[in-house]
């Protein structure tokens, strides 16, 4: 019953998941907060559409080009803003996201605000799943390497990172570019899923939702991001019959999660085979020692 519908939700979750994975690298592992990722998705969506529809590039290559385009844009943005701290960087990315949308609204070659209909429907559950598996593997391998560790060091303490020889700017940039590329590919898949793109699909609220998914799942946890993306894409669907109360519940749910589980669902933990084993042995041995991360000051 309703497989077509469920499939649709799965595909959409998968598309968002891809963007969330990228954002997770940036936010969860490098400690940078972006409100502009919908903008990167937009760049990816339009670039992919131009490649496949105007130049007849094959779908997968088109996706790669979409990712590349988003990466290039992020390179420029990063150059300008990665030296900014905290909220300044947030607002700068927010502005860039909006700026990208404003440009797309005005450029009639892409259909302007009226959008671009008639894009071939190429995104399927199969290719979404395969691309996501590849994306997760790449991300996990990256994070569990010296490069990923350098990013985490930056998240923890910038000055000390510098002192141990980490080129902070470079690693922030790598993180931003990779995450933008993920968002770009996600955008391309979105374009070929709905067959229609329009600048207003990539509003600020989309960036916000991506960030909420990352934090909901738990910063610095890839399995958390996966759970976050799927739960939060599905949640509004589950609530669909609540009509206008739906977003009220959604807003309340976000607050509730934050105040009851401020480290997010997974909070830095990963679901891996070893961890499952550990958990199991802990349960069986009634072990109760658990290190809590206690900080003082703020």
């Amino acid at each position, binding site marked *: 019953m309703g497989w077509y519908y469920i499939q649709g939700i799965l595909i959409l979750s998968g598309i968002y998941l891809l963007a969330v994975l990228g954002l997770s690298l940036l936010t969860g592992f490098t400690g940078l907060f972006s409100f502009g990722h919908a903008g990167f998705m937009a760049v990816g969506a339009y670039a992919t559409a131009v490649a496949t529809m105007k130049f007849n590039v094959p779908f997968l290559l088109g996706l790669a080009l979409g990712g590349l385009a988003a990466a290039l844009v992020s390179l420029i943005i990063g150059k300008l803003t990665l030296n900014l701290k905290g909220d300044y960087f947030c607002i700068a990315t927010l502005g860039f996201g909006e700026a990208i949308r404003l440009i797309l609204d005005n450029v009639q070659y892409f259909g302007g605000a009226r959008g671009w209909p008639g894009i071939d429907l190429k995104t399927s559950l199969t290719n979404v799943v395969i691309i996501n598996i590849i994306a997760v593997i790449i991300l996990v391998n990256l994070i569990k390497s010296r490069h990923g560790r350098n990013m985490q060091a930056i998240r923890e303490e910038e000055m000390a990172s510098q002192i141990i020889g980490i080129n902070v700017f470079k690693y922030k940039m790598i993180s931003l570019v990779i995450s933008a590329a993920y968002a770009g590919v996600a955008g391309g898949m979105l374009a070929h899923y709905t067959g229609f793109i329009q600048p207003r699909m990539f509003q600020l609220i989309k960036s916000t939702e991506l960030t909420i998914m990352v934090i909901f799942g738990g910063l610095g946890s890839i399995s958390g991001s996966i759970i976050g993306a799927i739960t939060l894409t599905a949640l509004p669907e589950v609530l669909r019959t609540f009509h206008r109360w739906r977003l009220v519940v959604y807003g309340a749910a976000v607050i509730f999660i934050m105040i009851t589980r401020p480290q997010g669902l997974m909070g830095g933990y990963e679901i891996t085979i070893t961890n499952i084993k550990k958990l199991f042995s802990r349960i069986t041995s009634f072990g*109760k*020692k*658990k*290190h*809590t991360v*206690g900080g003082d*000051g703020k």
Partner: protein
Amino acid sequence: MLRVKNLNVYYGGIHALRGINIEVQEGQIVSIIGSNGAGKSTLLNAISGMVKPKEGIITYKGKELPKTPHKIVDLGICQVPEGRLIFANLTVKDNLMMGAYLRNDKKKINEDLEKVYQLFPRLQERINQMAGTLSGGEQQMLAMGRGLMGNPDLILLDEPSLGLAPLLVKTIFEIIEDIKKMNKTILLVEQNAYKALSVADTAYVLEQGIIKKEGDAQEILQDKSILEAYLGKTH
């Protein structure tokens, strides 16, 4: 004046203080010594209300201490914390004024301010510098000065000589004795056990959350085993 009974503190699974009992007499200097991670700071934090004990009663002047830290400060208990915790975004002067936050006697405050400047002339030189840019030792002076500005009856000092030049360490201990003369009570946590014991009346040795030894400071200073464990070589 201060009595701690059967105090137990946990950090998550870590049992940091295990059934601590101490007593502080009015007008005395009481030293607590112990190695790293023994729980010294935790004890002071429990008294000032910054950590919530799981078990135990702390009474001050016969009454149980309130739970909220600012009310404890209001009773005249002031902590000069480990790691200084000065307000980096405020000037030196404003930091000192924050020390007197709960006081309203303008005239007395200004007198005390002068006193602090006398004790630490460097602070007077830097009146308008942002406290965050002070050197480590200057920050320590500021933290002490700020503590004194509260005009407390009981001062909790957490490693006041940390990071101070030898000359200044001497000064600090002189100041501690001065403060005692002003009829104030001091609970002193120090790594510099020799110095701490020499100024103290009573002392407690804390080890892994348990009081290992307590008694007259001079007696402890004579104790061979203590000397070996905490003083390294003697001079």
